[in-house]
C-alpha cells in the first residue's frame, strides 16, 4: 500500500539557549497582523513551566488528541461527531485568549502629549484587542527562565503524580531547560479529524498540515482538538490559523524561518518515508509506552532497495527518495534513537522530535549536587538522577524513562568517545559499542549533532512543479502586493508584469 513522504523536524534541546529568535522571526513573517497578535506559531517555553497556552499539556482539562475506547479503537478524546455537533454552539474544551494572554501595547502617545508635571509620564499598557487599559497578570513567556516559578512551575503538568514529591525536593537545586515548539505536523492529526468543515488537511506530498482559509467556517474544534494547542483562532477573521512549516520555503528547498534563523543551529529538517497502512495500528497500540516503538516501526528504511522501489512506484519522486536516505530526521530518530517525539501518548504520531538535553544532567553531576553520584560516572548519574530523566520522559516518551536514558547515554558516550580521540589521540571504540553504536556511526552522529553543518541539518528536496498546477517559477521575483502598490501609487508601477494575470492563468489550469 502507498508509501508516503513526510517532512519532519528534530530540535536538539542541548543547544537551545532560549533566545526566542525563532519565535520573533516566525512572528514577523506569519502572525504580525490584527487578529493574530497573541498567536505564536513558534514559541519557546521554559521547563519546568506552564507553557503556552497555560498548562496546555493537561489533557484532563483540554481533552485534546486521541484516546482508545473500550474496544481499543482510536477515538478523539473530546468525543465523537454527534457529541461535537450538539456542542457546536459552545465548545466546552476551547481555551480563551486569557489562557494564551491578552495582547497589549503601550500608550506611547502619552509620553509626548502628557502635560508638564512633577513626575515623568508613564506609558501604560493597553489591550491590542479592545484598546482598554490592562492590569498585566500574565503574558507571553511570563515564567521565562523560571521567573515566578515558585508560583508557576508547580503547575507544570509534567510534574504530576509520583514525580511531584521528588521534584519539589530537588527543586531547591533547580534545573531548567527550554522547549521550542511549532506545530507537530502529525501523521495522525487530531485537529484535522476534529474539523467539521473539512478545511484542514495534510499535504499528500510532504505531510504538512494546513488550514484552507476559504473552507474554514470557524467551528473552533481544531483548536481544542489539537493536544499541543498549535492551532489558533484569529479573532478578527473568525478562522483558524496554524504553523505552515513555511511551506513556500520548503517547496523551494529552504528550511523554515525558525530553523534558518536559529542562533543555536539546533534544528534539523528532513524527509521520512512511512507506510500509510500502518498509521492506525501504530496510533492504537494499547500500552502508551509502546507508542514510540510503534511510530518508529512505521518509518521505512530508505536504504532498503525494496522500499525505494515501492516508494518510486507510489509516485514519490526520485530526488525525494534520495533525500530520505540523507535525512537527519531519520538518522537522529530512527537510526540512532537520540531524538524523541513530544508527548507520544497523545497518539497523534507527531513529527517534530527532540534530542533530550544532557546539560542539566551534566551540570548536576559536575556540581556534585547528588552525593550518591560519582562525578566521573556520567552513566551512573543518568541512571540515578531520577530528575530530570523522569521529567523528560513525561514529555518525550509517555513516561517511560528507558528511551530517554538510552538517548542520554548515547549522547554522553559520544562526548566521551570524542574526548578520547582529541585528548588521548585515539578514539576508544569500546565507548561507542557500549551504547550500541558503531564507531563510524558515532562519527556521523557527531557531525550531525555537534557540528551540524547547514547541508547536514537541512536535507530538503524541492517541490516538483511539474506535478501540480502552480509553477513557482512564474511567480519568481514578483511582489505579492504589486497590484496594491499600483492602486496606491497610480500607474507608477511597470505594467509589463501583472501578477494577477498569472494567478488567473494558474487558477484556470487548476480547475
Amino acid at each position, binding site marked *: 500500500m502507498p508509501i508516503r513522504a513526510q517532512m519532519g523536524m528534530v530540535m536538539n534541546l542541548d543547544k537551545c539557549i532560549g533566545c526566542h529568535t525563532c519565535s520573533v522571526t516566525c512572528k514577523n513573517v506569519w502572525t504580525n497582523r490584527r487578529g493574530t497578535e497573541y498567536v505564536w506559531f513558534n514559541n519557546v517555553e521554559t521547563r519546568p513551566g506552564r507553557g503556552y497556552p497555560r498548562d496546555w499539556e493537561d489533557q484532563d482539562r483540554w481533552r485534546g488528541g486521541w484516546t482508545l475506547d473500550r474496544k481499543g479503537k482510536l477515538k478523539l478524546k473530546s468525543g465523537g461527531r454527534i457529541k461535537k455537533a450538539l456542542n457546536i454552539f*459552545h465548545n466546552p474544551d476551547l481555551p*480563551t485568549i486569557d489562557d494564551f494572554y491578552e495582547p497589549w501595547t503601550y500608550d506611547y502617545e502619552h509620553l509626548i502629549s502628557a502635560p508638564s508635571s512633577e513626575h515623568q509620564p508613564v506609558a501604560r499598557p493597553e489591550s491590542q*484587542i*479592545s484598546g482598554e487599559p490592562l492590569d498585566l497578570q500574565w503574558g507571553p513567556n511570563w515564567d521565562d527562565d523560571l521567573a515566578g516559578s515558585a508560583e508557576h512551575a508547580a503547575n507544570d503538568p509534567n510534574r504530576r503524580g509520583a514525580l511531584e514529591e521528588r521534584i519539589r525536593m530537588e527543586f531547591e537545586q533547580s534545573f531548567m531547560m527550554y522547549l521550542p515548539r511549532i506545530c507537530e505536523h502529525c501523521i*495522525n492529526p487530531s485537529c484535522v*479529524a476534529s474539523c*467539521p468543515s473539512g478545511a484542514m488537511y495534510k499535504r499528500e506530498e510532504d505531510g504538512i498540515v494546513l488550514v484552507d482559509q*476559504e473552507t474554514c*467556517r470557524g467551528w473552533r474544534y481544531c483548536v481544542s482538538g489539537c493536544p499541543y494547542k498549535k492551532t489558533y483562532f484569529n479573532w478578527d477573521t473568525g478562522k483558524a490559523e496554524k504553523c505552515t512549516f513555511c511551506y513556500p520555503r520548503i517547496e523551494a528547498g529552504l528550511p523554515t524561518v525558525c530553523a534558518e534563523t536559529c542562533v543555536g543551529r539546533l534544528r534539523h529538517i528532513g524527509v521520512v518515508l512511512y507506510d500509510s497502512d500502518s498509521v492506525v495500528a501504530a496510533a492504537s497500540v494499547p500500552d502508551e509506552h509502546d507508542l514510540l516503538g510503534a511510530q518508529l516501526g512505521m518509518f521505512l528504511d530508505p536504504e532498503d532497495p525494496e522500499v525505494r522501489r515501492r516508494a518510486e512506484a507510489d509516485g514519490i519522486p526520485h530526488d525525494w527518495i534520495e533525500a530520505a536516505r540523507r535525512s537527519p530526521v531519520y538518522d537522529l530518530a530512527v537510526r540512532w534513537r537520540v531524538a524523541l517525539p513530544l508527548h507520544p501518548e497523545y497518539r497523534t504520531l507527531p513529527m517534530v522530535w527532540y534530542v533530550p538535553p544532557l546539560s542539566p544532567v551534566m551540570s548536576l553531576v559536575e556540581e556534585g549536587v547528588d552525593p550518591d553520584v560519582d562525578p566521573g560516572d556520567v552513566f551512573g548519574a543518568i541512571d540515578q538522577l531520577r530528575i530530570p530523566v523522569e521529567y523528560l520522559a513525561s514529555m518525550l516518551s509517555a513516561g517511560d524513562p528507558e528511551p530517554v536514558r538510552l538517548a542520554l547515554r548515547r549522547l554522553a558516550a559520544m562526548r566521551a568517545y570524542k574526548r578520547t580521540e582529541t585528548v588521548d589521540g585515539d578514539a576508544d571504540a569500546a565507548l561507542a559499542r557500549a551504547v550500541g553504536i558503531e564507531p563510524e556511526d558515532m562519527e556521523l552522529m557527531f557531525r550531525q549533532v555537534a557540528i551540524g553543518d547547514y547541508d547536514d541539518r537541512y536535507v530538503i528536496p524541492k517541490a516538483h512543479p511539474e506535478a501540480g498546477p502552480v509553477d513557482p517559477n512564474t511567480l519568481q521575483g514578483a511582489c505579492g502586493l504589486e497590484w496594491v502598490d499600483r492602486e496606491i501609487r497610480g500607474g507608477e508601477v511597470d505594467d509589463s508584469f501583472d501578477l494577477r494575470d498569472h494567478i488567473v492563468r494558474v487558477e484556470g489550469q487548476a480547475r
Partner: protein
Amino acid sequence: MAAWQVMLYAVLPYAAVAAFVVGHIWRYRVDQYRWTTRSTQMLESRWLRYGSVAFHYGAFAAIGGHVLGILIPASWTDAVGIDEDAYHVISAVGGITAGVAVIAGLTILVWRRARIARVRVTTTRMDVVVFALLAVAVISGMAVTILNNVTDTIHYRENVAPWFRSLFALDPDVRTMDGVHWVLQAHVSIVWLLYALWPFSRLVHAWSIPVDWFRRSPVLFRGRAGRPRHASAARSGVR
C-alpha cells in the same frame, strides 16, 4: 387592497427571496474568506455558553414551530387527528418555550456584545443591523404567540398561513392579510427584511452545517491536481 399591502405582501416577499438567492450565490462565489461563524468564544466564553446555546436551540425549535404552523395546512393536522385544541396546546407550550429560549439567549448575546469590550470591537455595522432585526422579529413573534393564547385576535392558520402558501403558487393572496393583527404584520415584514440581508451578514454560517463531516474519513489528505489521490491513511477503522 391598499398599495402598502401590495408592497408588503406581494413585492417585499419576492424581492427578499431574490436578494436572498442572488446574494447567496454572489457571496459564495466571491467571499469564501469571510464566510464564517466569526465566533467570539475565544474572547468571552462564560456568557456565550448560556446565550449561544439557548439562542440556537431555541431558534431550531422556533423554526420547527413555524413549519408546523405556517407550511402545514390546518386540514392536514386535522386529518391526522390533531384537533384544534390539541394543536393549541402544542403550539402554546412549544412556542412559548422556544420563544423564551430565543429571547433569553439573544438578550445575553446582545448584552455581552454591548458590554464586554473585547466582543464589542469585533462587532460590525451589519451585526448591529442583524441583531436589531432579530430582536424585533423574536419579540414580535413572542407577542404573537402570547396574543394567540390569551386573546382571540390572531388566527394565523386562517390568514398568514394561506397567504404564505399562495406565494409559492406565484399568486399572492394579499387580501387574506386584511385585518391581521398589526403585531403579526410587523413580525412578517421584519422577517422578510432579515431574509433579504441574510446573505450579506454573518447569518450565512447557518448554511455551513457540516453535513459532510458525518460521511468523510477523519484524516484528510489533499494532493496537487493531477496526482492520484490515495485513500486516507485513517479511513480504515478510526472513528
